């Protein structure tokens, strides 16, 4: 007797069908302005957000396939916002110029649909399809404008590794199913212990699912693709991967941990290993990167290490699960907004420095002070300096982990966080040192029309404000999560 609440379906349906509509509008012969397509796509996303907002606040499930609970609601809003931001950034992006057509817009919509499914999945199959939907759309988006250096390579690297990890995850799902007889997350713990079930298989399956998740979150040692993909794709797509794709996966992980908390202790060791590897590897690899996007990619590896820190202590009988998950969700949220700022800035400057090499940004903070400060706030937030969101994310995660007795891990994590400051400072110093050369008039964003910079500016200012507000009003934000 599956409940058939339709509210959860409205938003994914809107975006999915909206994607199709956008495609159709795009092929309409008389309509050749890409801006209009992006506009329509944005409207679709806004409608989706409306649908989410108007849905009743109680948790509502559809066929035990997806369910919209309070956490997901905010997640969905975030993804919608992320999708919108991606569109705004991509619209006049230098690297994508002329290629942001109905196809790109529909892919963004499809990817957002995928994240809806993934984050709200109560069925392993839904999660798998959602993940693959996102991954597939992203895969195409990465290689958008294939002439760009590294675009194809990034897409192929992503495709191969993502398919491998997808297969591993699939295998995990199958094993979980084989062990428990159910694909429903909420049913698996109940089934266990019953006839013909087998806990070992479920745990092995869970671990393999975790590998798949770890891949999408880019947690070491499954993180290698991230740097290449960040570097190879255009900034809007990078922003989407970082701020939307990963967060959707994170929400699914939190959901998984919540539902399967009884099985979680069995894989604590796995997660601890991932945490240690991620924070160490990510920060070390970022230390000397000469490319800003790669640097942020490795920092992302470390950040998800910190997030996972909150999950090292989930267990069936602990009352702290909710707090742990909340801390992780907060961290994810803060990560999403601060990365949005960074990549929006990178995107805005891509006319000046298409390769995103760090050296190319010399003096940009002085030339464009507001941009510089926005980036500074984002980078400081990434570094965990108060009163930004990044700091409170770390604070909450560390507090929760310490509360569960993970002193050693927290110390490792905080040392790693301290070392991360080295490369964050490099970014800031480069941005605010004396400019090394003149910017051509054509690339100078101060000289370009409002239309070109409006989108990114909007995204940057809103998400910078969000970085600060999420930090300063952390108390309020926590009540939402």
């Amino acid at each position, binding site marked *: 007797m*599956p409940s058939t609440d339709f509210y959860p*379906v409205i938003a*994914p*349906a809107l975006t*999915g069908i909206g*994607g*199709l509509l956008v*495609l159709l509008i795009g092929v309409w012969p008389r309509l050749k302005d890409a801006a209009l397509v992006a506009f329509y796509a944005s409207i679709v996303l806004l409608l989706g957000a409306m649908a989410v907002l108007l849905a009743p606040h109680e948790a509502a499930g*559809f*066929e035990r*396939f*997806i369910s919209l609970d309070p956490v997901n609601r905010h997640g969905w809003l975030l993804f919608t916002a992320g999708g919108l931001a991606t569109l705004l950034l991509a619209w006049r992006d230098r690297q994508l110029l002329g290629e942001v057509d109905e*196809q790109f817009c*529909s*892919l963004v919509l*499809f*990817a957002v*649909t*995928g994240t809806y*499914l993934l984050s709200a999945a109560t069925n392993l*199959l*839904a999660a798998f*399809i*959602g993940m*693959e*939907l996102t991954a*597939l*759309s992203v*895969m*195409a988006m990465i*290689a*958008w404008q*294939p002439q760009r250096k590294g675009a194809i390579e990034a897409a192929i690297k992503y495709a191969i590794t993502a398919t491998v990890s997808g297969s591993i995850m699939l295998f995990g799902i199958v094993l979980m199913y084989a062990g428990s007889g159910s694909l429903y997350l909420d049913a698996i713990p109940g089934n266990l212990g019953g006839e*013909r079930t*087998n806990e*070992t*298989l479920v745990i*092995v399956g869970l671990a393999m699912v975790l590998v798949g998740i770890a891949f999408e979150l880019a947690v070491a040692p499954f993180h290698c693709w991230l740097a290449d993909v960040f570097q190879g794709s255009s900034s809007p797509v990078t922003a989407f991967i970082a701020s939307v794709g990963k967060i959707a996966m994170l929400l699914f992980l939190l959901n998984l941990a919540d539902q399967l908390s009884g099985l979680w202790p069995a894989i604590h060791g796995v997660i601890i290993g991932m945490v240690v590897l991620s924070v160490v590897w990510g920060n070390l690899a970022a230390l000397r990167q000469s490319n800003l996007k790669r640097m942020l990619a490795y920092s992302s590896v470390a950040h998800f290490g910190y997030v996972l820190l909150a999950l090292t202590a989930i267990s069936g009988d602990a009352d702290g699960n909710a707090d742990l998950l909340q801390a992780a969700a907060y961290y994810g949220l803060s990560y999403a907004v601060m990365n949005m700022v960074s990549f929006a800035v990178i995107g805005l400057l891509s006319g000046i420095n298409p390769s995103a090499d760090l050296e190319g940004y010399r003096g940009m903070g002085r030339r464009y002070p507001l941009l510089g400060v926005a980036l500074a706030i984002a980078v400081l937030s990434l570094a965990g300096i108060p009163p930004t969101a990044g700091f409170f994310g770390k604070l909450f995660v560390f507090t929760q982990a310490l509360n569960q007795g993970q002193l050693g891990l927290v110390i490792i994590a905080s040392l790693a966080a301290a070392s991360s400051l080295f490369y964050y400072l490099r970014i800031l110093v480069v941005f605010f040192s004396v400019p090394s050369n003149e910017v051509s008039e054509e690339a100078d964003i101060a000289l370009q029309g409002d239309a070109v910079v409006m989108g990114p500016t909007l995204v940057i200012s809103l998400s910078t404000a969000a970085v600060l507000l999420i930090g300063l009003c952390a108390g309020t934000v926590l009540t939402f999560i």
Partner: protein
Amino acid sequence: MMLWHFVFWLSCAVAVVCSASLLFVRKPMHGAVYLTTAMCALALAFYLLGAPFIAMMQLILYVGAIMVLFVFVIMLSPLQETFPLQLQDRSLWPGLILLILMLLELGALLFGGLQVDPTTPQIIDSKAVGELLFGHYKLAVEAISTLLLAALVGVMYFARHLQRHQERKLPEQQEAK
């Protein structure tokens, strides 16, 4: 039952062996042939397991669509080279060793004290599958159709670029060289 077992394990063995031969063949085309064989063998295994629908799907989707795609690409591929396995390349070994280790572990895990009731294959026909698919999993079907659409969009886009590239590749190639 003996026969069932014999055929089932035989088809499994064929699948494994044909797949493994991918490791050694020199030409992609040969690989595609081996792969097709393996898939057909697996289709047989599916059938024997009591899943005729999936067996059909295996034939249609894998053999009929995917492998054809492969073959097309191989035919279209401008680089008709052969790729001998280079075992002297030392970078290959760590991966193989890891895989063997993993298999050993899995073997130990599965057969080391794990008890699972034996089961007799029961036919679950396409009707049951269809009911589930378009009943409970209707949203999944919608989602997978969206996924196919997304794939289609991507393919369209890349195909367009392939075309465009061919149109102007000559001058660019000159420059590149």
